[in-house]
């Protein structure tokens, strides 16, 4: 018995070592980016771990070099945060509204709306790329924040996540609230959204991540550097900053670490709710 126990312990120890090594590989690109952004310039990419710390890349990023104008990096970070927040917030709220209508209310045409959303969800979005751009242009929204925000205000995926969850809420809960004289909005905000907190966390995290790293659409509709998201600005700087890898790494850190931080803050809730997304 003693023997098998110590063998089991050895096995577990090996497993932890393996898991930790794999974890290091998985986060290695993040570490590399962070280390290189803090490296003295002659060491960038030349060594894996810099021999001394230097903030020159960050200074250069915001002040610009002798021959290069500073780019609005912080503004771009703000733009990313603005667009991702507004879009995600709206997708969560409207997802709950429409999900509630589909799951709880009975009205004529509910099945039609439901099936239409399914059709919408599975229709290949790539076909809509060019015409949606033309529409945005025709509406006079080219080069505006609204161009990045408006087309994404409602998410079919979020609607179905909420609808599926709301269907599992006992009818009596809603009926009791109605008898107390609560209106639909009050029921949604006071009862349904609080009950659906695990759904909200998951929907929020996935949609926020997705919006934060969007490239193609944002690149097409906004060319003005003052309105570009950080992801787009970084893309456009690949060529011009090619000779300055250090500042590019600093910009990469600016883009990557906020989203990692948001995720880590919510990671406990993420773990609790993730099974909602991945039911096979």
């Amino acid at each position, binding site marked *: 018995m003693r023997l098998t126990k110590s063998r089991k312990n050895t096995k*577990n120890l090996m497993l932890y070592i393996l898991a930790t090594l794999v974890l290091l590989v*998985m986060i290695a690109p993040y570490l590399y980016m962070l280390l290189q952004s803090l490296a003295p310039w002659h060491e960038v*990419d030349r060594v894996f771990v810099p021999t001394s710390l230097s903030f020159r890349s960050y200074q250069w990023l915001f002040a610009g070099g002798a021959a290069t104008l500073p780019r609005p990096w912080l503004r771009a970070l703000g733009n990313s945060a603005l667009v991702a927040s507004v879009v995600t917030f709206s997708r969560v709220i409207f997802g709950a509204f429409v999900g509630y209508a589909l799951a709880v209310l009975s009205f004529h045409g509910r099945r039609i709306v439901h099936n239409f959303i399914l059709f919408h969800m599975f229709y290949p979005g790539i076909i809509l790329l060019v015409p949606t*751009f*033309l529409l945005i242009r025709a509406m006079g929204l080219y080069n505006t924040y609204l161009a990045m925000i408006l087309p994404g205000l409602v998410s079919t995926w979020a609607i179905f996540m909420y609808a599926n969850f709301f269907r599992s809420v006992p009818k009596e809960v809603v009926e009791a609230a109605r008898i107390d004289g609560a209106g639909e909005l009050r029921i949604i905000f006071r009862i349904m959204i609080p009950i659906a907190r695990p759904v909200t966390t998951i929907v929020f995290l996935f949609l926020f991540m997705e919006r934060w790293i969007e490239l*193609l659409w944002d690149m097409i509709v906004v060319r003005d550097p003052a309105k570009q998201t950080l992801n787009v600005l970084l893309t456009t700087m690949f060529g011009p900053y090619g000779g300055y890898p250090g500042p590019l790494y600093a910009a990469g850190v600016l883009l990557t670490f906020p989203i990692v931080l948001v995720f880590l803050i919510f990671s406990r809730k993420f773990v609790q709710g993730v099974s909602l997304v991945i039911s096979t």
Partner: protein
Amino acid sequence: MKLQKELRGWLLASPYLLTAVLFFLIPLGWSLSLVLFDWNLIAPVRIYVGLGNFQEALRSTRVLHAFVNTYKFMAAIVPAVVVVSLGLALIVHHLPRLKWFYAVGFFLPYLASGVAISLVVRGVLSYDSAFNAFLRATFGSAPRWLREPAWATLVISAMIVWKLSGYYALIFLAGLQNIPRELYEAAALDGAGALTQFGKITLPLLYPAFYTVLILAVGLCFGIFTEPYVLTGGGPRFATYTWQLEIYYQAFERFRAGYGATVAVLNALATFVSVLIIRRLVESWGVRKGFR
């Protein structure tokens, strides 16, 4: 009262209905007519070309590259992502404690912007990098990575596998946790070793998870854009050219709206047909093996 009930439903659904009309139905209708015209986004006159855009696209070598490369990426990405994510899931599943710490850690690559990671990959693979210096010191030479077609395809595939594995591992993990322990206990009593148990119990019962991961990964290969756009521009010699690069190039760099929309339709068709065929193959394989 009854009317009010009807109204409430439609009112709450209206945010969706409004955006669906504006940003789904109108573009959908527009795309149907767009593919029939040659239009440069600016000129007041559009030239009606009938099916000319389709004829041109079907003869285009650029489209052919995009078409073929998608299956090359698929051949590299799908098996690798299945094996890696299953491996990650097995590690997490067998850890006695801290399961979720490692699951969250493995998931972190999913948060990475393709742009930021392209930056790291370009730096690590640049000629003077510490990594290449190490390779030259150890093996005498280093590949020219992004300048060689086969390597460029592999590098981009590896980036995508890295990004998705931790996410797909969660799907496998859910599957693993659904397998009843008693099955393993019964098999152990019958004298089955760890490998036999894995082959006869774990793999067959994970079939639904395999199916989900496979379909997700296959579908994803038709939408590759960021990594080749930033890293290789589709090169060298179109080795990493993809559908979305071609759509972007035609519609937004050469301003050929009709032709770009046409390529997008072909992209969607190729995706639909390929996914359908692969689904059928995997399903009939599963039925033959008795997994479903």
